[in-house]
């Protein structure tokens, strides 16, 4: 039986570790804002045009920021051997893994969601779009974190796994991107936006159920061998 053994312990442990290196939390956020600033500079400052592509830009940048931060998810635990210690414990490591991913989401996905209105402002997103965009990001970045953790587990033992991680996870992100940016786009066009949000929620439920199982078997494979 899977109890919640280890979920809270690992959530607290990872949050504590991240709290000691706060710079790491800030980097994806700063990247998120910087990269999105470049889009008007590279294309056009025309508000009419930017407003149409704003949800898409914000989502693509959120995806990249998540991927950039994912490499460190298991890296330090792998290097100092605590991952191996976790794996030789007798119980399933599904719950500890979920705790770690939750900590990752709390320190990347959630902050990204909270600063996204700032980007909406920069990219002249209409005011109706803010709430749906934030709701979509809050749910969608959960999926992004879980899938990124799978990629991080697959590439944890490789010396330069970062780019490979991006390569293998990106195709899996496509449904999340489509429905995530649709949530904001629907609200701008005056349509009911809860539909795509509900689908994002369904994807998150599926990912929470399946990803930790896959991640724990992958970690066993890449770490022990």
């Amino acid at each position, binding site marked *: 039986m899977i109890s919640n053994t280890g979920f809270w312990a690992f959530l607290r442990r990872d949050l504590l570790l991240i709290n000691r290196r706060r710079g790491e939390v800030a980097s994806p956020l700063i990247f998120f804002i910087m990269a999105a600033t470049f889009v008007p500079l590279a294309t056009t400052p025309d508000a009419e045009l930017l407003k149409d592509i704003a949800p898409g830009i914000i989502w693509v940048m959120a995806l990249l920021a998540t991927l950039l931060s994912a490499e460190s998810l298991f890296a330090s635990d792998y290097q100092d051997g605590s991952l191996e210690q976790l794996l030789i414990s007798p119980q399933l490591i599904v719950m500890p893994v979920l705790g770690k991913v939750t900590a990752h989401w709390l320190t990347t996905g959630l902050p990204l969601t909270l600063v996204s209105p700032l980007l909406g402002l920069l990219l002249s997103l209409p005011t109706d779009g803010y709430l749906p965009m934030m709701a979509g990001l809050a749910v969608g970045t959960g999926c992004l974190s879980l899938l990124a953790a*799978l990629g991080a587990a*697959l*590439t944890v*033992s*490789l010396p330069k*796994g970062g780019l*490979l991680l991006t*390569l*293998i996870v*990106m*195709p*899996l992100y*496509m*449904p999340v991107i*489509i*429905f995530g940016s*649709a949530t904001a786009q629907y609200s701008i066009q005056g349509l009911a936006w809860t539909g795509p949000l509900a689908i994002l929620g369904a*994807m998150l439920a599926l990912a929470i159920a*399946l990803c930790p199982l*896959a991640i724990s*078997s*992958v970690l066993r*494979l*890449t770490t022990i*061998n």
Partner: protein
Amino acid sequence: MNWNWFYRMGSPRWFYESTSRWLPWLAALTFVLLAGGLVWGLAFAPQDAKQGNSFRIIYLHVPASFLALAGYFLMATAGAIGLIWKMKLSYMVMKCAAPLGAVLTFLALFTGAVWGKPTWGSYWVWDARVTSMLILLFLYLGVLALQYAFDSKDVGNKASAILALVGTVNIPIIYKSVDWWFTLHQPATIRFTEAPSMHPDMFQPLLVMILGFYCFYAVALILSVRVEILARERKTSWVRERVKQATQNTLGAGL
């Protein structure tokens, strides 16, 4: 039920020796089907009323797309069998299916682009099916990249098998979301919602080509698995015996 046949399939030697017997026949069948289908489709099938001769590229495009998708499922199934029953052979099948599938996906995209230029007016269109095929190509490339990233072949095999399985769970979701995305953004200039029903004269050669591509896929996969077997088992006595025999035969023929 007798499971002997299943366990025997796990033996690379058994696979190598039994395919040696019937592979020539399968190759001959493939040649007949492909040559017959191509000549029939390209030269004898009637012209399309609207598209003229350019429609004939479907005789390559459709079978390649079929096999690209079926190949992914075959690769993932082989990977799953490897993970569950720890069979060496099924990992080899998975490893060989990846590049083959990637090439077929590329072929499907390429022939689609060549056909799209005269028909749709551009090489690339963000159509739902085209986009799904592109994502399929990315999935194949991810599996390939992961396969070769590890020093240990065993870890590479298992890791890419898991990735292929995750991709399989995702393929229906990807397909449905692209479909939904396309209906949201459907451009007005292109009408390709329904393929017109085909005339039997055009359809029969297509059927022959699809069968031919399936046989071709089997032949190509078996050939590359055989190479993989020889490379991995090169230190065993039966492979050495075979190599010795083969070199003696060629030497004898040369003298």
